[in-house]
């Protein structure tokens, strides 16, 4: 993993720097609200939170073009938000309302949005990777210039589908960026209990895929690496594997008793909260004062509240429509 961070001023102008803080704040507050609503049984099924990992998606997705594709997992609220899916339609989806981005049929784990080219929201670990490579093949064959970015956890790398997708993407030089969010655990299974080789860049090398590992708690490192990785992929040099070392602060899902890790370990990682540390950096650099920060929080709170209002006001799909969308309506 890289040791030093690039300078903020080399990466961002002031507005962009503040915008990143706003984005990470939105992700955090949106998910905190979701957890609350889960407890209130407004949201059901499984709910997997991204809290602690925000710097990863925030460092990458803004550097994709609007028509690039993103494929994610069941832990994807934040990826969807960053790709342009509205907070309101995500919240409505989690309520199961037909105003949701998947019409209430997908729920938290299956967010989809054609307009922003957000391709899910997949809950079979590893299953999204071949799909992302396939989108990339379509882009390559159609010379669209688009690239695709797929997010997955380090646990997914033990699946055969990772192996097959990486090899095919490299063999065919497909424009796909593989982002491993290495948060050290797959449910309760620590990396060293899941991978015989914990240096994940060696895996990328075994497919002849260029790679880099960065501190996923550091927005600046992620940003700099993402820009390089994206330009590698977009310039036709084939796939790229970006490992972001991060940590999830909360349980795997709302059902997890967290028996497998020490509270102290969690606390230690929380010291490196990307939202706090990035916010402090901005203040230190004078990019925003207390008032501006307050305003930012208020704006975000308003957006989240509006999302909840929208979800609450949404409607239930008619039961008569149950058998729609099994096959296309022609």
């Amino acid at each position, binding site marked *: 993993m890289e040791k030093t961070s690039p300078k903020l001023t080399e990466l961002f102008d002031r507005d962009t720097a503040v915008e990143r803080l706003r984005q990470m704040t939105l992700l955090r507050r949106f998910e905190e609200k979701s957890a609350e609503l889960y407890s209130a049984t407004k949201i059901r099924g499984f709910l997997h939170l991204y809290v602690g990992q925000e710097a990863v998606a925030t460092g990458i997705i803004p550097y994709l073009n609007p028509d690039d594709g993103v494929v994610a997992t069941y832990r994807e609220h934040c990826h969807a938000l960053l790709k342009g899916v509205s907070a309101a339609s995500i919240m409505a989806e989690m309520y199961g309302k037909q105003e949701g981005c998947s019409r*209430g049929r997908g729920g938290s784990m299956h967010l989809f949005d054609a307009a922003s080219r957000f391709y899910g929201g997949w809950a079979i670990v590893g299953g999204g990777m071949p799909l992302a490579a396939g989108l990339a093949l379509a882009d390559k064959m159609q010379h669209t210039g688009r690239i695709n970015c797929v997010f997955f956890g380090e646990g997914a790398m*033990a699946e*055969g589908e990772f192996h097959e997708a990486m090899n095919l993407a490299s063999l065919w030089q497909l424009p796909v960026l593989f982002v491993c969010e290495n948060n050290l655990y797959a449910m309760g299974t620590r990396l060293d209990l899941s991978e015989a080789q914990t240096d994940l860049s060696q895996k990328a090398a075994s497919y002849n895929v260029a790679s880099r590992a960065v501190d996923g708690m550091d927005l600046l490192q992620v940003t700099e690496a993402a820009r390089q990785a994206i330009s590698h992929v977009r310039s036709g040099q084939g796939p790229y594997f970006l490992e972001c070392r991060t940590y999830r602060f909360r349980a795997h899902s709302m059902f997890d008793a967290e028996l497998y890790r020490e509270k102290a370990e969690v606390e230690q990682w929380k010291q490196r909260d990307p939202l706090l540390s990035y916010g402090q950096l901005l203040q230190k650099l004078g990019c925003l004062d207390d008032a501006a920060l307050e305003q930012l929080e208020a704006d975000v709170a308003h957006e989240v509240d509006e999302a909840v209002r929208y979800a609450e006001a949404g409607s239930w799909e008619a039961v008569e429509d*149950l058998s729609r969308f099994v096959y296309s309506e022609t």
Partner: protein
Amino acid sequence: MADDNDKRTLSYREAAGEGLREALNRDERVFLMGEDVGRYGGCFAVSKGLLAEFGPERIRDTPLSESGFVGIGIGAAVGGMRPIVEIMTVNFSLLALDQIVNHAATLLHMSGGQFNVPVVIRMSTGAGNQLAAQHSHRLEGWYAHIPGIKILAPATLEDVHGMLQPALEDPDPVLIFEHSVLYNLQQEVPAEFSAVDISTARIHRVGSDVTLITYGASLYKCLDAAATLTEQGIEAEVIDLRVLRPLDETTFLNSVRKTRRALIVDEGWRSGSLSAEISARIMEQAFYDLDAPVERLCSAEVPMPYAQHMEQAALPQPEAIVAMIKRMVAGGDGVDHE
């Protein structure tokens, strides 16, 4: 109940866990392997506490590698162990299907009887928790198509506890499907569970007017419906298949010959579900005993939607069972088919 010395109240989860613990104590060759069975405490907390008791050699957490560790379970069984492989849910078992169908199910036959595969594969199944299309499959009836494996669907605490031991003693691959909505089910059970077989269906309720054939969590919907029907003067006989392959057809055929009417309630998708096989067998062997066509109530043929009202609409419900049976008993051709 707590005040009766010989009885106690337990959850399906606890009964399953007790079965595992006893199996591990009974035979050194038994070990449990699967994703998060150990340190996490088990996805549905069934195996909670076992790691501390039996250690990481015998309570073996695996990486996300369904095909790999199921295949390893098969190999370890051939090599003399008695593995219990847990696949977290039936949905993920599709990643291991090659090992189950192409390998475990064929080895005894392809080797001319030389190598049997005494592996037990447990997994959860079922819908009803708003987990949407990729986490709600009910494919146990579909697995029952495959020769060379045996398929169990314990619906009661007695069965989820008791089927494990005969499954481990069985020389061939046995798949056990535990319905996830049952884990929290509480039932009164004896202080000591008694042994059960893995070959017969069970009549849960005797009746004379119609036979209700089901398995898994739908058993309780059928019993509910039967209770409602009895108030209306209709006595339903309720059969829990328990074993989906090989089917105990004697039990349901005898019942249908008596009641002359049958409804099969199957949480699987209707087309090609196990309910079709049962209907076909009744057709072939009890056609002349029927007073009305055998009917089926299954899940709607849709990937499971997330929203609760839609999910519930997709699943068989007691009200629909009652309505169908009333029409069947009233006679005539009154049942609608989409």
